[in-house]
């Protein structure tokens, strides 16, 4: 699985934000200071760390939304994007139009999304509602459609910020199962989670981020044990 070269490499990456505080006053703060990690093809890499450690910023670097201020980010052209539900949804449009639009924003072609429509309708259990405007949907229906599209349009490298089950109890079980299947499959996944049981179940390796820097990278048990120990008073 972790054969040869990493497909994505971060070396001493830092991100600096500059914020306006007054008319001429600016302050800078580092959202990430010194992050190094390797991502190998087909693996599931877990990320742990306290609140404000920089986990979400890390995912934004990996998905190409932000650019490192310092350090080196190597990606030979693999498309990575965050698992986001209801990306770009327009509430006056039908579920079908929104599904295609969302998929295209994630880099799928219109034809690819059309071909996936049947699977999306079936998985989301929307049936005829797919051709109704999204504004008429209940929150649960919207979440189900969003999840189905995200799963169907997921790219080569999938970045997940906490595993989310959505909808009612039965759909929650189904969506969590679908996500697990996706993670276990050949796909490369970066998973941020606070649920250590799920991480032990799904991850191949874990990176621990603390104070906006890489603290430890290695086997799941080893890193999680060290992380938990550091949290104890």
């Amino acid at each position, binding site marked *: 699985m972790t054969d040869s070269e990493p497909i994505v490499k971060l070396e001493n990456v830092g991100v600096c934000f500059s914020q306006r505080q007054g008319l001429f006053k600016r302050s800078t703060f580092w959202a990430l200071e010194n992050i190094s990690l390797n991502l190998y093809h087909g693996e599931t890499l877990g990320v742990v760390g306290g609140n404000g450690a920089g986990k979400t910023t890390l995912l*934004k670097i990996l998905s190409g939304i*932000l650019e490192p201020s310092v350090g080196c980010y190597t990606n030979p*052209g693999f498309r990575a994007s965050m698992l986001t539900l209801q990306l770009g949804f327009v509430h006056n449009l039908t579920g079908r139009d929104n599904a295609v639009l969302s998929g295209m924003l994630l880099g799928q072609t219109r034809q690819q999304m059309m071909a996936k429509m049947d699977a999306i309708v079936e998985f989301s259990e929307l049936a005829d509602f797919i051709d109704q405007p999204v504004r008429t949907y209940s929150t649960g229906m919207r979440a189900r459609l969003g999840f189905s599209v995200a799963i169907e349009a997921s790219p*080569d490298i999938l970045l997940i910020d906490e595993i989310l089950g959505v909808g009612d109890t039965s759909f929650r079980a189904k969506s969590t199962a679908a996500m697990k299947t996706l993670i276990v499959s050949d796909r490369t996944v970066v998973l941020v989670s606070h649920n250590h049981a799920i991480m032990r179940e799904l991850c191949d390796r874990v990176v621990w981020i603390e104070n906006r820097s890489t603290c430890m990278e290695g086997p799941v048990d080893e890193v999680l044990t060290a992380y938990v120990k550091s949290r104890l008073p």
Partner: protein
Amino acid sequence: METEIAKTGILVDPLQGKPLPKTHYFSLLLFKTYLDLRAEASRTYLNFLWWIVEPVLYMGVFYVVFGLMFKRGDGPDYVPFLLCGLMAWKWFDSTIRSGANAIQVNAALIGQVFIPKIFFPSVTIVHNMVKFAFVLIIFLVFLQYYGLGWNITYVALPAILVVQLLLIAGCTFLLASIVPFIPDIMQVVNYALTLLLFLSGIFYSVDSFPEQYQAYFYLNPMVSIIEAYRDVMLYSQWPDLTSLSIVAAVSILMIVTGAWIMSRYERVYPRVVL
């Protein structure tokens, strides 16, 4: 080379690792515009008839104020004179008003997925272009009924339309690229557009001013464009190609500058707009 690809953010096919054709964002642009137009229409009872009713109301307001109340329309052909200017102005005004903060209003999307920022003002431009097409057709029909029919100079009309499109794209791109950094510009834009409305020779002819002031009016590119439309549609004259060429050249320069700023700060916008 490898990092180069990552930096420019070219999409690659998930399974093959090859870049998707560059036309992806173009087809996304067309699809998004089509959906936005439909969403906009579906919000109202009259649906897409509003694309016709709204400009008619807009022009009606100015006709009542300037054509009837102030009696500016001494000449017999004041109505087509006024409408011709308003038609061109409305296209310019509405695109810039909604396009200048196109990157900002899409902040949520920008924070979730990588999309070239030039995509957002482009959607506004195409969207308003489609709506303008309706206005133009209605105006042409109106001219026919009014008795100002087709003439040979209509050959130049597509060129004027292209020049105006370039001007609109130039202003929109340039503003959209800067507004996320300095949101205050939006306030200025609104007032500047209102001022320009009265300085663009829509309600009056620039010729009616003393000669020594006329040159200043032509610093405003909309004056040249509106005069070109009038030359063709009202007076059956060839438009002044020199001034149109100058407008086109300046517009292209603005388009290039705006596009350059947007690509230069591609990954900075998500930090700024959130």
